[in-house]
Structures are given as C-alpha cells and as structure tokens.
C-alpha cells in the first residue's frame, strides 16, 4: 500500500512538474507573443503618429507661413513708412524745429520756470531793498535825535531842580531865584546888562519876582475854583527859603502812622459786628444792613434827608440782627414785644 502511495505521489509530483513546466513554457510563449505584439503595435503607432504629425506639421507650417507673410508685410510697411517719415522730417525739420523750440520754451517758462517773472521779482527785490534801507536810515536818525532830545531835556530838568542847592546866582535859562539880591549884586547885574546888545524886537520885560512880594490880588477880581485865602498866599510867598538836605519825615514814620490809625480806629468805630461762637471767624460775607432800621446801623450811602424820609415812610418794627432763636419762634415771642412789656 505504501508503495502504491509513494508511487502515486511520485506520479503526482511528476505530473505537477510537467504541468508547471507546461505553464512556464506557455507563460514564456505568451510573454514572447506579448512582446512581439507590443513591438508591432509600437511600430504601427509610430507610423500612425508620423502620418498624423505630417498632416499637423503641414497645417501648422501653412498657418505659420501665412502669419509670417502678414507680419513681414506689416514690418515692411512700417519700415517704409518710417523711411518716408524720416525723409519728410528731414525735409520739413528745418522749418518745424524752430516752431517747436519756440513753443517748448514758452511752455517751460510758463509752467516750470518763468525766468522773466524771476527777473522782475529780483528787480522788485532790489527796489524794495533800497526803500527799506532808506526808511531804516531815517528811522535810525529819528531815534538818535529823540535820544539826544530826551537826554537834553533830562539834563535841563536836572539842572533846574538842583539849581537852588548848588547856587544862589541866577543862571541863564533858569528862573530867577526868590532870594533877595544885595544892592551891590543888583548894580553889578545892571552894569552887565548895559553892555549886552539889545534885541531888535522890544519885548516888554517880565516883572521881577520882588514886585510880587507884597502883591495882593484886588478884591474886585472874582476867583473861581478852590483857591486859598489871600493872606495865606502872601505868607507863603514871603516865607524865606530854607534849603536843606535833611529829610523832614522820620525813619519810623510809617510805624507811627499805623499805630495812630489803629488807635483812632477804636475811637471811630462805633459799632463792631457782633461775633458769636457759632459764626466762623474767617470769611464772613458782608451783609448789607441798608434796610436795618435802628439808630446804630451805619448809613454810608445816602444823605441825611433821604435817611429821614425813608425812616418816616418805611418805619418797620425792630428787626433783630441776631440769628433766630428757635425757642422764641415756638413761643411766638419777639424782642419788640418783650421791650414793650418791660416799658
């Protein structure tokens, strides 16, 4: 049995081998055929493609040729036109170029840079500069003159004001001093004046201050305004001059005056505003007591007659300046009523 089995297996194996070999052979054959078929197809497709390409190539060549023809004719036309244009330009250029140059110059001067305007501007600047220089020169001279005049007037005033401190003699241009001259001085002055040249125009000389020594204004002249009494005027005129550098007020004058003011304020002040503990000490608003009708209210801003009239007209009952007391309100009482009761 086992022999048969082994023999059967052997046969099977051999069969398998043969089948496998046949399959491989068939596979090889198939492959060969396939490759041959592929080759043939490839060859045929190539031919087909070539045929197609030939057609397409011919078509494209035709189209390209046509387009090239068109383009080249255009080109040729352009070149010929350009040549014609250049020829014409050359022919007419010498006439047109100046016109164009004229226009371009005008346009650039108008829009980009106007040289004539610039020239006019610079001429105007030069003119304005000259005007400015002359004006400034005049102003400078005027300033110098003003400076000189100010200095001169300052010196003249200074001379006048210190004249009585430094000299008892009369100086030219300065008013004659009130100190009486001795007889000899007066004679010497007269002799001096005799030698001077008299002016052509005779002007009435001003009376000397000595003539006004005992001058009294006449009674019939009415003086209007706040004039002093005649006697006090005469007294002042005749008062001898006592020039001194000593200051008439003392060093402590301000303190003394302040003390005095303070003392007098206690006297003058009749009624002080009453201060209560509830009231704030600082920044109390001033309450005008114009309509408070008591004897002690200050009335700074109306005269006596109006006060009297207003008192008669608007005589209101006593109005207290003290703050309201709630207890009184509750009881319906007032100071006025109380005072009446007491009386």
């Amino acid at each position, binding site marked *: 049995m086992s022999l048969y089995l082994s023999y059967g297996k052997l046969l099977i194996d051999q069969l398998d081998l043969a089948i496998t070999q046949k399959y491989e052979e068939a596979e090889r054959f198939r492959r060969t055929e396939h490759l041959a078929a592929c080759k043939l197809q490839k060859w045929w497709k190539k031919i087909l493609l070539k045929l197609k390409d030939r057609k397409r190539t011919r078509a494209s060549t035709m189209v390209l040729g046509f387009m090239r023809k068109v383009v080249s004719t255009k080109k040729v036309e352009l070149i010929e036109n350009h040549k014609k244009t250049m020829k014409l330009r050359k022919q007419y250029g010498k006439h047109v170029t100046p016109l164009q140059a004229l226009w371009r110059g005008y346009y650039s001067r108008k829009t980009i840079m106007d040289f004539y305007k*610039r020239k006019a501007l*610079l001429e105007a*600047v030069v003119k*304005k*500069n000259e005007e*400015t*220089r002359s004006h*400034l020169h005049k*102003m400078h001279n005027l300033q110098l003159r003003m400076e000189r005049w100010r200095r001169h007037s300052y010196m003249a005033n200074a001379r006048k004001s210190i004249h009585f401190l430094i000299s008892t003699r009369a100086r030219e241009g300065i008013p004659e001093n009130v100190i009486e001259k001795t007889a000899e001085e007066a004679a010497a002055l007269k002799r001096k004046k005799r030698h001077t040249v008299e002016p052509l125009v005779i002007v009435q000389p001003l009376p000397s201050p000595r003539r006004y020594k005992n001058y009294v204004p006449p009674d019939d002249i009415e003086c209007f305004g706040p004039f002093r009494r005649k006697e006090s005027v005469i007294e002042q005129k005749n008062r001898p001059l006592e020039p001194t550098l000593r200051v008439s007020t003392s060093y402590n004058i301000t*303190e003394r005056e302040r003390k005095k003011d303070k003392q007098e304020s206690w006297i003058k002040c009749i009624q002080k505003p009453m201060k209560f503990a509830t009231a704030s000490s600082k920044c109390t608003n001033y309450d005008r007591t114009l309509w408070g009708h008591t004897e002690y209210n200050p009335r700074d801003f109306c005269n006596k007659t109006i006060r009297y009239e207003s008192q008669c007209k608007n005589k209101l009952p006593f109005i207290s300046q003290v703050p309201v007391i709630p207890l009184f309100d509750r009881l319906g009482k007032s100071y006025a009523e109380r005072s009446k009761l007491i009386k």
Partner: protein
Amino acid sequence: MSQRQVLLVFEQYQKARTEFVQTVAELSTRPQNIETLQATGVMQLLRPLLLDVVPTVQQTAALALGRLANYNDDLAEAVVKSDILPQLVYSLAEQNRFYKKAAAFVLRAVAKHSPQLAQTVVDCGALDALVICLEEFDPGVKEAAAWALGYIARHNDELAQAVVDAGAVPLLVLCIQEPELSLKRIAASALSDICKHSPELAQTVVDAGAIAHLAQMILNPDSKLKRQVLSAFAQISKHSVELAELVVEAEIFPAVLTCLKDSHEVVIKNTATLIREIAKHTPELCQLIMNAGGVAAVVDYIGDTKGNVRLPGIMMLGYVAAHSETLAMAVIVSKGVNQLAIILSDEQEDHIKAATVWALGQIGRHTPEHAKAIAVSNVLPKLLQSYISPDSSEDLQTKSKKALKNILQKCVYLPALEPLLQEAPPNILKHVVAQYSKVLPNDPSARRMFVTSGGLKKIQEIRAEPGSALQEHIQEINKCFPEEIVRYYSPGYSEALLQRVEGFKPSTEMQTS
C-alpha cells in the same frame, strides 16, 4: 516798675530788632560781607524774625534772606534746609503787599540757581500762592510774582509745565496789558521762558492770546521791553511752521525791521533771532520776509555789528538761500555775498566763520550763476584757507569742505578756479579738475588761457592713482590739447630732451660734405 518803664524795655527791644534786621539787609547788598554773614549763622537769626510781631521787621528779614539767597546756591540751599520756604509760602496768602514782595523775592532768589532748588520751591506749594499774587492790585507784587514764576519755568519743560498747570499763563497775559513798564517786561520775560521748551507750551501761550498783545509792544521805545518781547516771539516761532505763521499773521513785518537799528545790541540780536526762526521753516515765509525788505535789513545789520551779535543774521541768510535758487539769487542781489566775504576775512571766532562758510555754501550750490557770484567775490581761496589751516576747528573745516564741494560742482568760472589748482589738497582738487574737464572741451579761448596761465603744466604735475576719477579727468583734459603740447608741459620733458641731445649722433654724409 511803672507801666512806662515796662513799655520802654519793649520799645528798646523792638528798636534793636529793627536796627539789626535793617543792618543785615544793608550788609547783604555788598558781596564782600556775605561770607562773614554766613559764617556768623545769619540764617538761624533771621528765621525767627520772619514771624516777628512788627511787620517792618518781618519784611526786612525777608528782604535780607532774599539778598543772601540771591548771592549763591549754597546760601539758597541753606534757606531751603532751614525750612523757611513753607513759612514764606503761607505768608504770601496772608500778609500785606510789602511782605508779599519780599517773600516773592526770596522764592525767586532760591529758584534761580538750579532746577533742583526750583523743584523744591514748587514742592512747597509756592506756585499756587504766586499765581494768586498775580491777581493782586499792587503792580509791585505782581511783578515780583511774575519774576519768580519766570525763574522757575526757565530751567526745564517739567517746571514750565507745572507753572502752566497752576494757571499762570492767562494772568501773565493780563500783566502784559498793565501800564507799568517793569511789569510788562517781567511778564514778557516769563512768557518767553515758558515758551522756549516745547511746542505744546508755546501753543498754550498762543492760545491765551499773547501774540496780539506782544505785537503791540514791538515799537515801544523801551529797549528792555522790546528785547523781552522779541525773545518771546522767537521762542514761539522756533518750534513749528504753524506757530511761525501765527506770529507772522500778527503783522510784525515790516515794523520789526526797525528794531535792527536799535542802539542796544541785545534788541538787535533778538530781532535777528526772530527773523531767523521764522525763515528756517518754509520758502513761503522766506518770501514774505524778502517782500518786506528783510534781507537787505539783515545784510546791513551784519555789516554794522561784530561778534556774536551778527551770528543769527548770518544763519538767517543761509536758511533763506537754502530753500530755493530764486531766494538765493535774492540774497546775492541784496549784496549778501560781499558782506559775508568781508565777515569771513575779518572775523576771528571760529563758530562765526563756520556759520558764514555754511551760508556761502547754501548760496552757491544751486546753479552756475550762483556759483559764479560766489567765485567773483574771491571767496573760494578764503574757503580753502579755512579748510587747510591747522588753527581752524573741526566744525569749521567740515563746513568749509562741504561748502567748497557744493560750490565747485557748479562753478564754471575758470579764473576763480586757477588759484585752487595750485593749493588745493587732492580731495578738493578732483572737483576743480572735474570742472575744467567739463569746460575745456567746448571753449577754445578757455583752453588757450589754461595753457598760458600754467594750468596745463600744473595738471601734468598732479600724481593721480591709476583708475581714479582724478586720473580720468586729467586724461579728458589732455585729450583737449595736441600731444606735443601735453608732452612739452609734462614734468621732466626738458631733461628728456637734453638726454636726447646728448645721445644724438650726427649722420656721416653730413660729415663728409
């Protein structure tokens, strides 16, 4: 003891205190006494007198303290350390006008020395008290308060901002309108000190309506007032175009030009500064100044003055010329170049020369016409001298080099370039040679002149690196002349000729015949 005797003692004490404080105040006016007073501890003695019962003693003590603090910053620090400031600030609100003036004087004397001391004054709450003083009736108090505020605002923008935040500006503008001259001066000075730090602060002052009031005072005869007003305007207009236009809209031109003829130098300088600050912004503003005749006025002013006073005017001309060629031509036509040339030769100070050189560069850099105007004034050799001289500062040398370069690049006026050919260093020489290379190919008469003046010879003597721009320009110039002439002027040609003569052998035919 009777009442009278008791009162006598107190009177004597009061008299002694008064005498002491008045003497100290008098002594502190002289600088030689200050150190002695400081050594004796005068601060500690004066401090309690500030709280004295007698107002005169208080005021004189404050005055003495102010004079001491005014002297130097050590004493001012001593005032601060002695805790005097809070008392003064409190008293500013309470006391009478004499004390207020003295207290404001002390605050000013302390604040003026340094920003730190000014900050201390601000920290004590002095600003509010000072601003309240500006509302006082007495002009002396207002003046003292405005002065103190100005000294505080002067240091930096933070302090100036603090002054503005305290509400001082509208009150200062009101102070300007007061009739007292000294108050106007101080208020204008304070506004100027506020404006100078930043555009925002300047705008605040402008918004308060200061410009119109300041403009009215330009023609005031008082020089000190004018100088403060002009300074304020300059500080406002320097920040931006808008502010400068606002100042110009106040119609200060041409009235402000009369201030250039003032007798005081500071007024003239401030006027020029104002015009400079306006001109530097835009060409339109420069045009406005030019139309008002400002350029001529400035040219005259820089000719009449000397030293630092003329510096703003020189800068103004430079700014005007920098904007456009028309404005530069206007400066030339107003004889600005001649004046600047005179300044360049007369001035000794380097910073003024540097400004002059810069201004000339701005004028000449635009077109050949401008460069010719500069060259004709014989300025180029002076510029070169400023550049070469070892005594010149670095700034002057830099500016001279730039100006030379800018002018030479436009200059085609050959007679002015000849001197530079002889003396210029290589970095300047290349520009000179470049200009020659531009002009000579087109101008036969210039070529002749170039040969006869020795320029061609000089060109051949220049040793330039091969391939450099200078070498190229030299070659271009050489192409303009025949080869023989170039060879004739080349260095060593005579030697070469003589060597040829020596080496020459006459021919034998000549010998036999």
